[in-house]
């Protein structure tokens, strides 16, 4: 069992992707052309980008359930400000506001000592409410058509921009997690907070920065999605938080904290997108798609639970599986 789990940790998500690809290639002739594949990757990029941030949060020993509301907040701020500030200004302000939300999450969790679950869930509701208040409950149409180029254009005539954003953010987050002292500190605080503290680390600061990173990544996706639709939507992407969590955990980042796997996250994002594509292909109703994501999350948690149990971290840390 331990051997299987260790193997899964390394290559599990790739096996899933290969299996899904073979399946799709057989049932759908369309899958064999480049545009379809790029479109699947693009659809997966939204979840993957936020899951990069989520991977940091989980690695530090927490998680963030407020990401979809951060997307909504970003969306309405841009829509409201774009007529007066233009799109550079409105994007900067929306992203900064989102980072401030992450900062608040971090302070509440580390300094006030509220659990990440309650803090970020409350933040989710607060932001949703605030976004609806700002727009008076309406969706706000953006008239600057040129804003669309940010999320809906293609580089070199074939590569959708979101894929490029995903690649750039992946590189940045990967380097931060694996090559910098900050990344090391994040893993240490999630691995054993007390030991990290006794090693002289400033846990509050580290975790606060982590929650800022999550909110930042959610905000970027908020910008992309808003640009694609040209509408400021206060209730953007309902239920998307769960997708993001599923991607991070499925990618092999353990809920026990301490081990972040961004490569896994990247591919899990694409895998989830393949599931959606496959279900669409088979003409399955949208309700079943929700069902599928839920089952995938449970599956990922199941494997993670086995891992905690068998790799004995659970026992050492007193985590209930």
């Amino acid at each position, binding site marked *: 069992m331990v051997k299987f789990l260790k193997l899964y940790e390394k290559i599990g998500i790739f096996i899933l992707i290969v299996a899904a690809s073979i399946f799709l290639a057989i049932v759908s002739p369309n899958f064999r052309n480049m545009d379809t594949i790029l479109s699947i990757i693009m659809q997966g990029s939204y979840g993957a980008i936020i899951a990069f941030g989520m991977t940091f949060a989980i690695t530090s020993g927490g998680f963030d359930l407020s990401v979809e509301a951060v997307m909504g907040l970003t969306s309405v701020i841009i829509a409201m400000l774009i007529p007066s500030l233009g799109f550079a200004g409105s994007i900067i302000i929306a992203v900064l506001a989102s980072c401030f939300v992450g900062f608040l999450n971090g302070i509440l969790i580390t300094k006030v000592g509220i659990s990440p679950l309650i803090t970020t869930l409350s933040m989710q509701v607060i932001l949703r409410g605030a976004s609806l208040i700002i727009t008076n409950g309406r969706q706000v149409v953006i008239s600057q058509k040129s804003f669309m180029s940010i999320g809906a254009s293609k580089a070199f005539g074939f590569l959708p921009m979101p894929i490029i954003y995903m690649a750039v953010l992946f590189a940045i987050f990967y*380097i931060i997690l694996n*090559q*910098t*002292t*900050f990344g*090391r*500190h994040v*893993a*240490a605080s*999630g*691995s*054993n907070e*007390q*030991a*990290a*503290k*006794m*090693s*002289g*680390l*400033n846990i509050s600061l580290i975790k606060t920065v982590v929650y800022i990173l999550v909110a930042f990544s959610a905000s970027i996706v908020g910008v992309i999605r808003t640009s694609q639709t040209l509408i400021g939507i206060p209730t953007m992407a309902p239920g998307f938080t769960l997708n993001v969590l599923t991607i991070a955990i499925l990618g092999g980042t*353990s809920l*026990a*904290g*301490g*081990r972040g796997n961004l490569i896994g996250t990247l591919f899990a994002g694409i895998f989830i997108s393949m599931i959606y594509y496959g279900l669409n292909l088979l003409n399955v109703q949208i309700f079943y798609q929700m069902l599928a994501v839920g089952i995938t999350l449970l599956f990922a948690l199941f494997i993670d639970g086995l891992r905690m149990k068998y*790799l*004995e*971290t659970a026992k*050492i*840390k007193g985590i209930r599986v």
Partner: protein
Amino acid sequence: MDENNIFIELKNIKKIFPGVVALEDVDFDVKYGEVHALVGENGAGKSTLIKILGGAYQPDGGEIIIEGKTANISATSMAQQYKIAVIYQEFNLVPDLSVAENIFIGREPKVGKTFVNWKKINNDASEILKKLDIEINPKKFISDLSVAEKQMIEIAKSLSMDAKLIIMDEPTATLTEKEVIKLFSIIEELRKKGVSIIYISHRLDEAFKLSDRITVLRDGKKIETKITSETNQNEIVSLMVGKVVKDYFSEKKQKTSDEVIMEVKNYNIADSIYDMNFQLHRGEILGFAGVLGSGIHHLLRSLYGGEQIASGEIYFENQKVSIKKPSDAIKLGIGYVTEDRKGEGLLYDMSVLQNLSIIIIKTLTAFKGLFIRQKKELDVFNAMAKELDIKYASVNQRIIYLSGGNQQKVIMGRTLVSDCKVLILLEPTRGIDVGAKAEIHKIMTALAEKGISIIMTSSELPELVNLTDRCIVLYKGKLAAEFNRENMDEEKLVAAEIGKHIYSNN
């Protein structure tokens, strides 16, 4: 049987753990209404013995006879049926339930079959508490009680089960003096009622005050059972210590310099350390000895910034300093190696390499502390691994897969690579085998010879006696005695640890 009034008798009890004989042919008995004290150093086998009586362990040989019949205590629930109650140092109480609910947990009086009879449960509870002369409202929550009160509730709980034998493991370790007096009067009450008590304590004076007989364990063997009125504390201490094994210690050759590197003045920690003063010299190994509840661990933790409630002055290299958090201590050059490897030492999910470098990782970087220079990190690791002779399969191996001794070396190495001037070591050899112990001792001696000052504590007295230049004994948070290499031996340390000041140095 009856003329001897024996409630329980153990014959030739044996318990073997992998690689260790924990108990060897132990005979032991307790009479009705007797207080029987069980004493011995750490690792003597006291805990194993009470766990066997409580049904937590099964003996590998021997016989247990309860009220004349052979008994098989195969589970903790069986102990209850035999009317044996064990009060461990860690209480078995549910913090979010009331006193009454805890006393009757699992045996609540019911209305019909489903509903708890609240009136009866509260009345019954207050009756039991009254019998013991304990003034606690049975409706109070356990989480609102003090340690002493919780302990009384444990006793009340045992009584409500009609326990005929109550085993108390270090009951006074965390109590104040007033609470101890209260506990003693309760024990006196129980004795009058015919309840037998096995009393385990590091504090010999308590054993003498309370007990009818005293049994001494050492290295898993019963040394002797003495009638309390026919023996004295000196005899018991020498029975406890026995012969000293000196072989595996490496002697420190060099003399300590007179230069004071660190000085602690008028140091207080709420409820655990009172008015502490001491100096630490360059290259000195300073030991701290004391039993559970002496406050040593609080003191040493707080010198590293691990606790924030201390008051007093600390001077480091003649500068007054303030150590509020571990990073303050690290900056000064104070290192700390925890006794709680699992709780605050190991970064489980991380590799051997990452575990070793966590404190100094900021210095192994390019671009102003941002990017880790992997090669430099590896060099530091390799040098330290060689120096400490750490055995590992690969640098990327997760630390939890290493043996206890090698884990300990990595944790020590983590502190050593930071070039500290003062090293605080708590139980440096706990839970590791004899070979690795000797290695750790050798490392410590070598460090001291290099001019690093070491503050250490250990519950293994031979370690203190043989390694330290000087040893300070704490008793209930106060400095009780101080010994130097020439006048220190185990007997004196034990005596001072348990509150006998007769051997004091000055």
